[in-house]
Structures are given as structure tokens and as C-alpha cells.
């Protein structure tokens, strides 16, 4: 593997993201809207059996949400690259499929983490206490989680051939992953038929680990969460490489 090729693809992802101010602002605004308006409104209606205030409970969930939206979006941006023909230039270059995939995943992960960190820093406004150590641990969790999420986006993009598929991905992938991750409400009180979906959703463990770190509550042991996240990252990335190889 040539680090230079990976870095090149990574840099391009980051540059393109940085130039697209509109979608950056709207995506950060969306997270703030969820946190303040949804969180404020729901919090006022009062949840039963929460050990902390709702907004505080919701906060790690919204950090994870911004991670989810941005990661998957950046994973499926391959569809755009294909439509604009740019993918061809990369595919005929001496860069290997693995290098391309690695650059894409790391690029998407960097972008998603940047946005999630911005939301993380809003924590003190909704009652979360940020310390140097919990910020560092959160960032590590974000990194691990986003690896799976970007890879899932890449896999989805290899199945979807055109970008009309974006709405389908939104409805059948992003929203269910968001709702069934424990980001908005505690998963232990959900109807039992949802349990299997919650259990296979990598975001569930990201949310749980983040909630342990930032609020001090959660369902699994944080080490279990991190272990599962690592396994999910490896599994989705290797599936992603396959999806990339089958392209052509």
C-alpha cells in the first residue's frame, strides 16, 4: 500500500468538503435544531425513568447523528464521482482499489468527525461536562464509529447506480439507523421486535459508548461497545473493499 495514494484521495475528500460551505452549514444547523428544538420540546414533556435531563441524555445521540449523516453521505458521494466521470480517472490510475477505499473511508471519517466535534463543543450549553479526557475518548469513539458508517455508505453506493437512489438510502438506511440506535430514546424500553435491529446497528454501540463517556450512563459496558465497534469497522471495511472491487 502506498501511503501517498491514500493521502491524495483523503486530501481531495477533505478539500471538496471544505469548499462546500452550504451543505456544511446546513448539516451543523440540523444537529443544533435537533438538539435545541427537539430536545427542548421533548425534554419539557418529561420522559419517565431517565436518570438525567432529556437534553443531556439526547446530547451524545445528536453527536452520533451528525456522525451518521455525514459519514454515510460521504460514503455514497462515490455515486456523484461516478456520475461526473471523476471516478474513472482514479480507477485507471496506478492506485489500487484498496488504497482508493482507504482514502475514501479516512476522508469521510475526517469530515464526519469534524462536524461531530463542533456539536460536541456545544455540550456545555445543554448541561454536558467536557473535560480533556472525555473529549479525547469521545473522539476515539467517533473515529471507530465513522469507519463503519462511511464503509456502509460506500457499500450502499455500489448497490445504488444513480443518485436518485439517495432518497431511498435516506429512508431505508439512514433514518432507521438513526431511530434504532438509542440516540433519541432509551433502547431498553423499545418494543421487543425492534431489538434485533438495534443489536446489529453499529451506531447503537457508538451512541452507548459516547453516552458513557459524556453523561455516565449506558446499557453495555464501554469496553464491550468499543470491541463491537472495532469488529464492525473491520467487517464493513472488508465488505466495502469487495464492493469496490466488483465495480466495473
Amino acid at each position: 500500500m502506498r501511503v501517498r495514494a491514500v493521502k491524495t484521495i483523503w486530501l481531495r475528500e477533505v478539500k471538496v468538503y471544505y469548499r462546500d460551505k452550504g451543505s456544511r452549514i446546513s448539516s451543523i444547523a440540523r444537529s443544533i435544531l435537533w438538539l435545541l428544538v427537539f430536545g427542548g420540546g421533548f425534554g419539557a414533556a418529561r420522559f419517565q425513568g431517565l436518570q438525567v435531563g432529556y437534553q443531556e441524555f439526547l446530547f451524545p445521540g445528536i453527536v452520533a447523528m451528525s456522525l451518521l449523516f455525514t459519514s454515510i453521505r460521504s460514503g455514497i458521494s462515490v455515486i456523484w464521482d461516478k456520475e461526473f466521470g471523476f471516478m474513472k480517472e482514479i480507477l485507471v490510475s496506478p492506485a489500487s482499489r484498496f488504497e482508493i477505499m482507504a482514502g475514501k473511508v479516512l476522508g469521510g471519517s475526517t469530515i464526519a468527525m469534524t462536524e461531530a466535534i463542533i456539536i460536541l463543543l456545544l455540550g456545555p450549553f445543554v448541561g454536558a461536562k467536557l473535560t480533556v479526557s472525555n473529549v479525547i475518548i469521545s473522539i476515539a469513539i467517533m473515529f471507530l464509529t465513522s469507519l463503519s458508517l462511511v464503509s456502509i455508505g460506500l457499500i450502499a453506493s455500489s448497490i445504488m447506480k444513480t443518485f436518485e437512489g439517495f432518497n431511498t438510502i435516506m429512508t431505508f438506511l439512514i433514518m432507521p439507523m438513526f431511530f434504532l440506535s438509542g440516540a433519541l430514546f432509551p433502547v431498553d424500553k423499545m418494543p421487543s421486535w425492534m431489538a434485533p435491529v438495534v443489536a446489529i446497528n453499529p451506531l447503537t454501540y457508538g451512541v452507548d459508548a459516547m453516552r458513557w463517556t459524556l453523561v455516565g450512563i449506558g446499557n453495555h459496558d464501554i469496553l464491550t461497545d468499543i470491541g463491537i465497534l472495532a469488529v464492525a469497522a473491520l467487517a464493513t471495511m472488508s465488505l466495502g473493499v469487495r464492493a469496490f472491487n466488483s465495480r466495473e
Partner: protein
Amino acid sequence: MYVIETNNLTKKFKDIVAVDGLSIQIGEGEVFGLLGPNGAGKSTTLNMLCTIMKPTSGTAAINGLDVDCHPHEVRQIIGIVFQDTSIDNRLTGRENLQMHAELYGVERKLAKDRIGELLRLVELDDRADEIVKNYSGGMRRRLEIARGLIHHPKVLFLDEPTIGLDPQTRAKIWDYIKRLPTEEKVTIILTTHYMEEAQGLCDCVGIIDHGKIVALGSPKELIREIGEDVASLTLEDKSRAKEFESASFVKKVNVGEQVMLVLTDGASSIPKIFEFAAQKGIKIQSLELRTPTLNDVFLHYVGRDLRHEHSDGKDRLKMTMHRRGMR
């Protein structure tokens, strides 16, 4: 040694044979043109040569490297300008070139000078730091040509390099292409729909139809082969054109936009044409005697006009309606 050599190169898609036993040799510094109607197998050939597609059978080698066994090495020594744009229009021109240099592992110090040099060659140095989104179609093409050359490829593939460009821009691109073999020591393979493009640029052309090479040679040779003179006729009833085949002074009749008669001996045939037409009662509306062009060669071998092939549905509809209106 040839820079590009194919041997019985074949590509099948299910039952369709897209490229059928293609054998060509291209020497260093040559500009080779691949001509043919849509679906003739030009793009498939190109895709196999630049390692995007695997051949079904037969071999192709670039600079002695087999494209099937050594795709990675082949990619290092070829540059490609695709028919559709393939630049990132959210990056600047320079950034696109830098990215290419990085992907192809060009040494950084060298890359900077190289990029500057190529930007000057395609006259984009003053716009290099603008986002590509603001570029015109011609500028994008020029940027892509520059990009394809950054890593000093031995072979440059140009797939329809001037399609969709206005005549002025096209002439400019031709100008760059003409300079490349000497200035960049590169061998060029191009596909094109434009006969004047092939005639003006190529040292050698291969006309391909139904996956097979039907004519191969320099444009001059090919033109000479079909005859010294061609009479181009407009007939009142084009369907009667084939009757000229029985005339002794006519070598071949090709029916395209106009009726083309390949003549055995030029100017002296003109009175004979009129005599013959009068005998048969064929009405000639206009006649022009001219030396043949590559387009006549194309018609001769492929039997249909490329321009008609190339026009899209709308144009074709217009043309049919136009013809009906004339009748």
C-alpha cells in the same frame, strides 16, 4: 519494437463480438486514428488497451507489457483523455493536476515544474487557480490533455478529443495534439468521428466496422487507393444512383448525403456522366469534381456516412422530415 501491438485482440459481450480479432502495430511517435461508426468497437478497443476491460482472447501489449498480465505497470506509462470529462470540477485546475501527479507517484519537486510547463503548453497558466466549474468545455479538455501528460506517458489515449467543441477551440486542440509527438515524445491513439480531424492529425488510421479493421494505412495511401477523382452528384431521385454502377468509367458508387462516383479517370469522365445520365433519363441537379477525402474512403469501406450515424435522434428526425418535404 512497436509501442502498441495487438494480436487477434477480441472482446465478446455475451453473444455480441464487440472487437473481433484486431491486430494492429503502432510505432513510436506515431499518431494513430481509430475511425468507425458508433458501436463499431472503438471504445471497447481503447478500454482494453488502457486496462479498463479484460480481453476475451488475444493479446495487447504497450511498450512490450501485456495489458492483461501487467495492468498496474501499463497504467504507469499511459495517459488517458476520456470522451466524457473526468475532472473534479470542485477543485482548481492546478489541484486536479497535482492530484494526478500524486496518484501517479511523480516526484514532488519535479511535479511542480512539470505542472507549470504543461499549463503553459495548453495556455491555462493564468486560469490554473480557478475552480474548474468556471471553465468552458474547451478549457476542460485542455486541462485533461495536460493532466494525461504529467507522468510522461509513453502512450496518450484520446477518446473523441474534440467532440462537442466549437470549430475555433477544436483547431486549437488540434494544434496542441500536433505538437505532442515531438515535444513530449509520446505516441498517440485517438478515436474520432471527424474525418478532417483524422486526416489532419493522423500518420495512420484504422477504419473499424463491426469489430474488424476494414482499412489500415496513412490517410494519403487510403485516399490514393480508392482513386484519383470523385464526382459528387445531387440527383433528383437518389434511389437511381446505383444505375451508375454499370457505367464503364465508374469504379464505385457510394450513397451518402450525396451520391459519390469514384471515377477511373477524372475530368474526362464528366461529359460521360452527363451522356450516361441522359440515356438513362436520370436528372442531375448538380455535379462537382473533386479529389477524394478521408470521408470518401470511409464511405467506400463502411458503406454509410459517419455524419448520419453521429447525429442524434432529433437531428435524424429533422433530416427525414426535411427529405420528405423535398419530395
